[in-house]
């Protein structure tokens, strides 16, 4: 069984289609970064085999959540908050171990209200992992942090992944996804446009190739400059090699929507010969 199974998620905000039939799975022990995600209104998502809205306490004890827009009681000390949360779980991590993981061992006796934003975020991550979750969700764990605090948060998350926890994190920073994730899912205009190893997304070893068949008469003149060079209306296809995959896909999908071109057969893969032949 996969740790996370997502089927046909959709979400609309008026005209804007934020999620359009998005499906993916996350295997146990995998660290997956999601870019451009929105909360769905339709479709099913199962975590550890259960639908989150219906699952009970025992299930919630196996899942760790670190959300945005939550806050912690400023009157509690870091150690107290971790202890209070630990008491809710069947076999919590020892508080000292969590303090080490979030690199706040020296701040255990300090009230949360006195901590910096980055430290507070790490306490939040600590509360998410104190119950030894099998699956951990991190919703933009470093948004709003300065670069030093961000690197520190990354070190914390890397420590967790060594322990075998499945992690699903959303982020707007490609750099973050590359540093932390085994696998990166990119959503653009509501569609899952890439599912790749981080190295494939921005050329460390190789560039990435985007291939898509073009229907006859597609208005290629209007393509973004970076893509126009790769369009071959005669052969009926567009092939682009790029190191900036997210930007290229974003441009491509935007163009396709403006002109109502269906991107059926779109492929994103490493620049070396793909294992699958393009259609």
């Amino acid at each position, binding site marked *: 069984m996969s740790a996370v199974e997502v089927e046909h998620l959709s979400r609309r905000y008026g005209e804007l289609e934020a999620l359009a039939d998005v499906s993916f799975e996350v295997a*146990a*022990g995998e660290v997956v970064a999601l870019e451009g995600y929105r909360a769905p209104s339709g479709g099913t998502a199962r975590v550890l085999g259960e639908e989150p809205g219906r699952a009970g*306490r*025992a299930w*919630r*004890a*196996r899942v*760790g*959540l*670190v*959300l945005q*827009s*939550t*806050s*912690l*009681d400023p*009157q*509690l000390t870091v150690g*107290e908050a971790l202890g*209070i*949360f630990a*008491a*809710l*779980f*069947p*076999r919590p991590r020892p508080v000292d171990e969590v303090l080490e993981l979030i690199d706040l061992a020296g701040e255990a006796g300090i*009230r949360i209200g006195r901590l910096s934003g980055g430290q507070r975020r790490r306490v*939040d991550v600590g*509360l*998410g992992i104190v*119950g*030894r979750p*099998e699956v951990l969700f991190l919703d933009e764990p470093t948004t709003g942090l300065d670069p030093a605090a961000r690197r520190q948060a990354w070190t914390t998350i890397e420590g967790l992944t060594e*322990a*075998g926890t499945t992690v699903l994190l959303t982020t707007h920073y490609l750099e973050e996804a590359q540093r932390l994730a085994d696998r990166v899912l990119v959503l653009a205009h509501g569609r899952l446009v890439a599912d790749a190893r981080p190295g494939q997304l921005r050329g460390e070893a190789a560039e990435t190739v985007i291939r898509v068949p073009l229907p006859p008469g597609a208005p290629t003149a209007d393509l973004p400059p970076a893509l126009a060079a790769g369009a071959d209306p005669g052969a009926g296809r567009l092939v682009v090699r790029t190191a900036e995959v997210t930007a290229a896909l974003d441009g491509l999908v935007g163009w396709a929507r403006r002109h109502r071109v269906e991107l059926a057969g779109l492929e994103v893969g490493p620049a070396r010969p793909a294992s699958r032949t393009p259609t």
Partner: protein
Amino acid sequence: MSSPARRPAPPRLPGIWPTLAGQVRYQLLLLGRNPNALVAGVLLLSLTATGGGRVPVAALAGRVVLGVTLIAYLTHAVGLVAAREAGVLKRWRATPLPRWAYLAGRLGATLVMALASGAVTVLVGVLGYHARVGPGAALGLLIVLASAPSPGPRSAPRSAP
């Protein structure tokens, strides 16, 4: 430490009584660190009791009721709304704690505080102002306490979206 292959059923969750006790302790800790309610419900009240001579039991009873009401309002109602606004409740929702257990923890802590407030007010009345408190007054105090966390202040959070 733990390998990725974890199949066995998870161990049992902590029992509900220890969980509730933990919640009450947690809320009392918060109240102790944020003593507005205690100041308003006990200290301020004791100050209003100045003036020479003996305090009639009825006046003392009135102060107890005022103190308990202030505490119930300032700790339970205001605190709950504040926690909700700040996103503290959302943080708890992401844990195995049942929603009602959080509320029960707040109620428990409020009750303990109200009891303490009532006791201190009566004590000040008796020792400082020679109020005569009999068994009937004790019964009245119990009734007041029993009604302290009831719907009045609790309906306040409804207005939030």
